[in-house]
């Protein structure tokens, strides 16, 4: 059952690096992360890789396998031909630190720029009441394990470094949608999504949805509905009039700060 697989793993740091060839044992039922660990233990003690749970729950071991963004722990070796050479490279959209580890601080910076949940005024802890059907919409997005594969694959920033400043990426646009659909959130999110987080950059190619290991329908359920709501408001004459005379949702409430540089 066991066989030796051919692996090509990118080794290097921020300054230089290349693909290195390894031949490494594979046993029944193993995933790519098992093979990377075997390389560490037997051939490359300093091979850098992030991982934690090894069960697809923490989103740490994101990398690109044969050019496809994947979780190393959820990619089974049985999906490859035994003769195939398997190439493992770091996420391309983020700067390399070492080997398979990249600098994902872009994601943490964007997370900070999304104004947090604003609890409803006058509702005491313990008195929150929400229907299951209403929480389910946001719950889908809260399944996100922050593997950042969606941001990694999104062409808006994968191929255009300069867009990073103005675009939060699918992960954090989805966070805005999640808060917008939270039954008790007290902030107006729609204008923010467009003006502050770059929703307009998304042209719904659905690459993010395709790579999501949690199978969250990022484009269909988060981004497109946000886009529709933004459009509804922008072109709805009643809303337009309301906003002019100060009746729009959220206009009387304190606004969370905009933190765009």
């Amino acid at each position, binding site marked *: 059952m066991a066989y030796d697989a051919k692996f090509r793993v990118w080794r290097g740091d921020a300054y230089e690096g290349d693909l290195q060839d390894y031949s490494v044992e594979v046993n*029944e039922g193993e995933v790519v992360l098992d093979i990377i660990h075997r390389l560490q233990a037997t051939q490359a*003690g300093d091979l850098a890789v992030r991982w934690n749970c090894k069960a697809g729950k923490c989103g740490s071991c994101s990398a690109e396998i044969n050019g496809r963004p994947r979780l190393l722990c959820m990619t089974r070796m049985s999906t490859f031909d035994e003769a195939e050479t398997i190439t493992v490279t770091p996420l391309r959209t983020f700067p390399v630190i070492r080997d398979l580890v990249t600098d994902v601080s872009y994601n943490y910076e964007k997370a900070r720029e999304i104004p947090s949940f604003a609890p409803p005024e006058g509702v005491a802890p*313990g008195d929150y009441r929400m229907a299951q059907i209403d929480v389910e919409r946001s719950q889908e997005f809260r399944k996100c394990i922050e593997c950042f594969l969606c941001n990694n694959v999104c062409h808006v920033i994968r191929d255009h470094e300069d867009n990073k400043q103005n675009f939060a990426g699918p992960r954090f646009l989805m966070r805005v949608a999640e808060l917008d659909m939270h039954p008790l959130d007290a902030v107006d999110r729609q204008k923010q999504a467009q003006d502050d987080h770059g929703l307009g950059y998304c042209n719904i190619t659905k690459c993010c949805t395709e790579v999501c290991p949690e199978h969250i329908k990022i484009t269909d359920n988060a981004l497109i509905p946000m886009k529709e709501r933004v459009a509804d408001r922008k072109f709805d004459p009643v809303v337009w009039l309301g906003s002019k005379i100060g009746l729009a949702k959220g206009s009387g409430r304190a606004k969370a700060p905009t933190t765009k540089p």
Partner: protein
Amino acid sequence: MSSPTDISGSAPAEVERHSYDVVVIGAGGAGLRAAIAAREAGKRTAIVCKSLFGKAHTVMAEGGIAASMGNVNSKDDWQVHFRDTMRGGKFLNHFRMAELHAKEAPLRVWELETYGALFDRTKEGKISQRNFGGHEYPRLAHVGDRTGLELIRTLQQKVVSLQQEDLREHGDYEARIKVFHECAITELFKAGPDVDSPIAGAFGYWRETGRFLAFEAPSVVLATGGIGKSFKVTSNSWEYTGDGHALALRAGATLLNMEFVQFHPTGMVWPPSVKGILVTESVRGDGGVLRNSEGKRFMFDYIPDVFRTQYAETEEEGDRWYTDPDNNKRPPELLPRDEVARAINSEVKAGRGSPAGGVFLDVSTRLKAEDIIKKLPSMHHQFKELADVDITKEPMEVGPTCHYVMGGVEVDPDSAQSRVPGLYAAGEVAGGMHGSNRLGGNSLSDLLVFGKRAGDHAALYAHSLRNAPPAVTDAQIEAATRAALAPFLIEDRPNVERENAYTIHAELQQTMNDLVGIIRKADEIELALKKLDDLRSRAAVASVEGGREFNPGWHLAIDLQNMLLISECIARAALAREESRGGHTRDDFPGMNPEWRKLNLVLATDTPTGLRDSQSRITLVKQEVPAMRADLLELFDPNELQKYLTDAELPASVAAAASDAPADQPQRG
């Protein structure tokens, strides 16, 4: 990049220095809740964690948070929760911790909703609660089977909201709370060499660059989780190397009851590479049954005497309980984890196991496919992706996996402070709360209740020292730097045979699994202690290839020392406790002994300086378990108390009542 062994780049003057009121080590549920509390108390707070922010082991928690909100069964209250917790822990829990936990858990859960958490709901729109092993009523607030992820994300986002507040008020996100992620703490600093010398700070390295950093802080909160990576089959991640346990011990704090290690009854057993990954107890809470290779629901044969009156005796009654819990007793699949794990172990040993060496767990016969996917989405996903098993159609194969350590830092129940002034511990790294066995769902609530308490008290203590904060000396920083770089220096030593940290780690895991595992014997534990001795001397010459930048080999070499120290503590305590109770089963001393229930085993080091010292010796003493208050004792049936306590411990009224109804006769249905 400088040469890894170049200490010149690590002179005290060049080590990154930070000064905080409170340093929290660990960013799981307990650490984040502690940090939020300290920051809300107005103290400058650092959170230091080995992984990226939001990846802590708490994300792995599946089933839920136990809190007696009474949303599903209004009969539930803190007293019932307290009683269940003490029973689960076989009365070895610190009663005061169990009391505070049961009383405060609902407040801590409700508070999460104000941070933005979205739990599953009841029909009335309240937080839904599910059944779990050892809990009398549906008690676990949950989000499908990804409750831990919801908890970590909610707390993470609360920290971010505090940072946004800092930006508004101070123009800097990190003015009062900063996350140092991918940063490992290797030593604690103290203001003196004695047990009661206060904490002065902590030392560590950035994983990314290998650069060192030193914190000066009057308060340090340990929230580092557990020790599972010392065992081969485990549900724990690489982070669980007992860092906080080791840091506390070296700093002069005491460790309590380290022999109690929980083997979760249901881990995956196939394929081999995923062996140990957790299968949530919710599968059984939602109706899953355990069968052996003969198709028998074997748990009915394993109901221990102390639980006999609370569990169904027939499959029919157990089945009726799911729809009519008021008039039927619960099925024995929902016994506390230690009981179920031992039962599975016995079935496999008796040759009635599944092909891969586990037993069968089947939820497909009770729930419809759509309900399984809704209630247990990540289990469905995990089995499909990793094992080609569709749990809506076929049973899972499961077996015990090392999951949790009940033992931990001995703390004052109200303040979470260890015996070292300024050193606090909360969550899995703390001991006492769960006694000899933790109930499922009581971990997440423990993190919140005692995380908040630790943060509050750490802030108060830091405030009391605001005019005279302790200082860290250059000599301390030098010593810590040398210890951290030691693995790089092995090669320079003549006549030393280099060792590989990965190999030693694998041997440690095999040793603990085989010799100090779910069933223990004196001669095997003694053998384990000998092997640990040998592994320790080999670990001292484990060398590292490559440089200091993100080098997992180096990180492991350092963590390995913690694992070896804590494994010795576990083995020493396991050898000393000559009875079987909860997460400690001695083949040579079967059964609980009420005399042993009165005793905690307490471990300490004879060199409480905070720094690593190869000459340190571990001491073990027996210490009386604090006696439960009379008002809490009264919550139990006299017959039940008699099964756990010695006659001398029974209150006069209870002893008199108990003599009317002998406890030894199990009440059969």
